[in-house]
């Protein structure tokens, strides 16, 4: 039950996608000029291009970033939970994902029905993964926990999520 105040627990990010963890790294995500805080609203038109992500941490540490949508295709019937949007690995600490290796290229949010949560999870790597990692065949039915267990990544070190919904076709006045 959401007796805690943590936005990740309240938004059921912890529980649906990841397990309870202790944040160790600061991660700030910017779509254009808009800073992403937990649960904020981002329009899909603003999120077409990959965001600018800056992470703290030592430069000799490597990190993996995963972006998924646990509410695909609709939050009331998430049959394709989760749908993975972006996987980047081998990001050196203190930099951004452009320095890492793009395992799965970025696809912007396109929620067909309802309001979807989009979660960016950062894991710390024990060793450089590089060529070991092959992209998943399907973007749908991805499981972040299994992915982390498979690559021995352990618990995440940072997580942030935002909401997005389909924009109306006509421009809202």
């Amino acid at each position, binding site marked *: 039950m959401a007796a805690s*105040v943590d936005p990740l627990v309240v938004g059921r990010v912890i529980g649906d996608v990841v397990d309870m963890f202790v944040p160790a790294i600061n991660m700030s995500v910017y779509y254009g000029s808009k800073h992403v805080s937990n649960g904020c609203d981002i329009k899909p038109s603003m999120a077409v291009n990959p965001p600018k992500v800056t992470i703290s941490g030592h430069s000799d540490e490597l990190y993996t970033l995963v972006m998924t949508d646990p509410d695909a295709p609709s939050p*009331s019937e998430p049959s394709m939970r989760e749908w993975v949007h972006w996987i980047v690995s081998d990001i050196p600490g203190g930099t951004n994902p452009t320095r890492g290796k793009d395992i799965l290229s970025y696809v912007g949010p396109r929620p067909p*029905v*309802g*309001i979807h949560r989009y979660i960016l999870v950062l894991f710390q790597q024990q060793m450089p993964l590089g060529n070991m990692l092959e992209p998943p065949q399907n973007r749908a039915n991805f499981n972040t926990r299994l992915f982390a267990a498979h690559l021995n990544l352990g618990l995440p070190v940072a997580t942030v999520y935002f909401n997005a919904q389909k924009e109306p076709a006509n421009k809202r006045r």
Partner: protein
Amino acid sequence: MALSMAMAVDATSCTSNRWSMASLRTALPSSSSSSTSAAATIRLPSSRCQCLQQCISLSRSRRQQQPVLTRSFTAINPLSSLGFSDNTTFGHAFPAVDNGSRFFAMRHGRRVPKLNRPPDQRRALLRGLTTQLLKHGRIKTTRARASAMRKYVDKMITLAKEGSLHKRRQALGFIYEKQIVHALFAEVPDRYGERNGGYTRIIRTLPRRGDNAPMAYIELV
């Protein structure tokens, strides 16, 4: 000396007030009001301004009022016997002044959220909101509307859990779209079979820009 006498006078007046309330309470049938969970006391201030204090909204959901006094009045309430309360199907509704045209500053005993609308519009609004929530799974509205619709969403899911034809027709009479009712009756037993109540969750967010109305996401658990 004068101080002690004044204090004694105060004490007697206080005790006389307390005595009358206590005697009134013991005279009336006592009810077990649902106690607010300990979550109500957890109030950690945080620098982030959204998605906070979910516990507050959850604990406020169980309205711990003093239902004692009002329950004793329902049987003899002339307005409800005349049939002025609108949605008799969904529990009792009290008009604003059921106490003989006396306005109170507090909210004691008021259980129906009016939503600033006449009863027919209110019912239509709630029907529309529950239809949309069942269709989309998560919607964003004002906090008052979100907390008002919980009751109706839970009712619809309970009807779907029972699953008989009569319940299905009752649901069809409330929800605006047929497909949604049929989809609901198909998937609710798997999805909410073990869960007893509490099928929604409200997450508060930033206020709306146009009128600074407090907003919230309401979603199906």
